[in-house]
């Protein structure tokens, strides 16, 4: 194998062979043998595959294997699993890495022997070499971005889509990487100013936690007692506390299909701002499928964040399958992110390629699982907009609020619109619901 074929991650390991040998010798003296080194290598493979495996975990892994022993491959697997995996979605990567890395069935036996001997035999030396090569192979077969690979190529063609010429959205899923052009300096300045002023008009809700407040309406016994002690026990000055208030979690679901493409840049800037503005924000993009981009939007620099989003999402400006995407959200995410009474911001024009197939059920389910569902629709910019499309008809009865984000091209105006307080939620039908009926 040429030097080139060895991934970067493995190269330092090869180069520092001498050092490694020293380490191994020490290990053998210490009684834990080569298995320790191999667990370390295995941990490195996992790390390069994106699992958060630090040095502390390696030590723990070694301890765990010492506890379990090397009698059974299954026990060995689950011991390492208990240490290295800490989210369910990491299991797949772990499983693959494990089978690639520890695939030689006789390896365990030999390793078991290696734990015992007090001398370094030539075979062990060879073993180390073999292992390093195997590691390199494992890395080659497990590039860091592997887990997503299968899905990326699977749905590229979508053969039986009929093009609907009446409406403007594109019927084919366009798998393309949108290249976010950098904003001009002026624009950037304006955006920054706007973002700095931006406040989401979403109510704060009382939590079950308290803080000290002399104007509060409950007595803080602990503080009262302390105050009494300070005063010498003569008089007991009452101290008060009141409920803390806090924003509920916020979930943003944003349509990035073709018909929304002219707004998507501004919306993404906006989402970046609110994602970094507070904790407990989860952001999802959907076109033909749903992508969670919360982590990508957490990058502080907006350009970097949008670049990462561009890499993560591959259905930019394609068709829209709102029902399908919401179904995905409802089954896979709603229980995880809507847990504590979240407010959902649903940004879409309601134009659906699937002709609102299954959409009504899904939006109803979503509505029932969240505290408040706000639909932001750019099409409302047209004075005579009426929710006539099948998608909008299905969505309207199930939203708590329907707001326009017209003039979305300008972030300035967007933030202004969102800063306006929410209209009162009356008991009768809302004007837009009448329009939909």
């Amino acid at each position, binding site marked *: 194998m040429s030097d080139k074929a060895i991934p970067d991650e493995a190269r330092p390991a090869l180069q520092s062979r001498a050092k490694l040998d020293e380490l191994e010798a020490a290990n053998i003296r210490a009684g834990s043998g080569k298995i320790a080194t191999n667990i370390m290598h295995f941990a490195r493979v996992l790390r390069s595959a994106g699992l958060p495996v630090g040095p502390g975990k390696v030590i723990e892994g070694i301890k765990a294997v010492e506890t*379990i022993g090397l009698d059974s491959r299954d026990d060995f697997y689950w011991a390492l699993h208990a240490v290295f995996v800490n989210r369910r979605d990491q299991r797949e990567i772990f499983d693959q890495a494990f089978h690639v890395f520890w695939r030689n069935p006789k390896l365990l036996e030999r390793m078991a022997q290696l734990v015992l001997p007090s001398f370094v035999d030539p075979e062990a030396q060879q073993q180390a070499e073999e292992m390093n090569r195997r590691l390199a192979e494992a890395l080659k077969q497990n590039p860091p971005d592997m887990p997503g690979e299968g899905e990326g190529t699977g749905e590229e063609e979508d053969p039986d889509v009929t093009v609907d010429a009446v409406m403007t959205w594109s019927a084919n899923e366009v798998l393309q990487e949108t290249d976010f052009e950098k904003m001009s300096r002026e624009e950037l300045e304006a955006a920054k100013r706007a973002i700095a002023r931006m406040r989401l008009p979403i109510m704060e809700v009382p939590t079950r936690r308290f803080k000290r407040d002399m104007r509060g309406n409950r007595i803080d016994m602990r503080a009262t007692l302390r105050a009494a002690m300070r005063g010498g026990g003569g008089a007991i000055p009452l101290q008060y506390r009141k409920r803390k208030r806090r924003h509920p979690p916020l979930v943003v679901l944003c349509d990035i299909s073709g018909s929304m493409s002219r707004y998507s840049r501004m919306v993404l800037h906006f989402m970046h701002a609110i994602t970094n503005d507070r904790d407990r924000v989860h952001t999802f993009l959907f076109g033909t499928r749903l992508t969670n981009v919360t982590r990508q939007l957490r990058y502080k620099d907006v350009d970097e964040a949008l670049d990462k989003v561009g890499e993560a999402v591959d259905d930019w400006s394609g068709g829209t399958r709102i029902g399908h995407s919401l179904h995905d959200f409802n089954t896979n995410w709603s229980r995880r992110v809507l847990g504590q009474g979240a407010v959902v911001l649903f940004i879409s024009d309601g134009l659906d390629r699937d002709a609102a197939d299954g959409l009504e059920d899904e939006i109803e389910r979503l509505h029932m699982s969240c505290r408040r569902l706000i639909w932001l629709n750019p099409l409302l910019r047209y004075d005579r907009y009426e929710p006539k499309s099948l998608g909008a008809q299905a969505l309207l009865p199930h939203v708590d609020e329907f707001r326009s984000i017209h003039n979305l091209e300008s972030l300035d105006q967007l933030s202004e619109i969102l800063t306006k307080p929410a209209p009162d939620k009356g008991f009768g039908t809302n004007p837009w619901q009448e329009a939909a009926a």
Partner: protein
Amino acid sequence: MSTLPENVEGTLELLGKANYVSDRSLATAVHLSLQLGRPLFLEGEAGVGKTEIAKVLSETLGRNLVRLQCYEGLDVASAVYEWNYSAQMIEIRMAEAEGMSDRDRLGDDIFSDRFLIRRPLLQALEPSDGGAPVLLIDELDRTDEAFEAYLLEVLSDFQITIPEIGTISAENPPIVIITSNRTREIHDALKRRCFYYWVDYPDAERELEILSLKAPQADEKLSRMVVEFVQRLREMDLFKVPGIAETIDWASALHQLDIIELTPEAIDDTLGVLLKYQDDIAKIRGSEAAKILDEVKSEIATAQRASA
């Protein structure tokens, strides 16, 4: 004080003693957690037997079970300790009446052990009969991030600081089991301190085994059908697929109703035991249930022929 099992087989046996049917993989994680004194973090859908593990461990090891049920707004006063304020007030009044004016002594008096109310986390750190207790922190995802952060100190050093008294640390760290239904992600910092295990739905064979232990009154043939039916439901696109707890409930319910063979009508009548969302029920009730039942019946018939 019963001793901890020495190997994975021992742990498997231990769980089995209390009628807990476990995968070897789960037993491995439990064993590691017992041996290395680290918390075990169990995640999984509702009704797969996460909480049960803590109960089983406390029962078979003869340890006390200390349970902390998490909820939103759980705070130190209800999770760790609180002062008995009314008793303290009376104490102050008494001191006043006796004309005691030594402020320091009074302070020492009213902030002493006597007035401390121990909540689960503090209880778990104190020595108890039969060895360190089993601490079950149930549904951690229901509490908020602030409490999670507080747990970090408790779980890594097994000590709690009370300003008025000082630091209380556990002589023997408790066996800690944490469960989560994943209604939100738990922070990595906490997970890092634990052994992680995702509790999955069991396969048909194991589920049948569980059913025979937990609902022994149900007819064997009926149990097999129940299990096969539920297994098929889990493959379907439902909002919430039934857990093991639902399977057990369903088998018991059918037994209560004297149903000895599954029929489409019987399923329709009792579907509410299995599925807890109206959408799901509407989807399965009627023809879909009948279809699944037919598949189950033909499969069981094939299996019987093969074994005969």
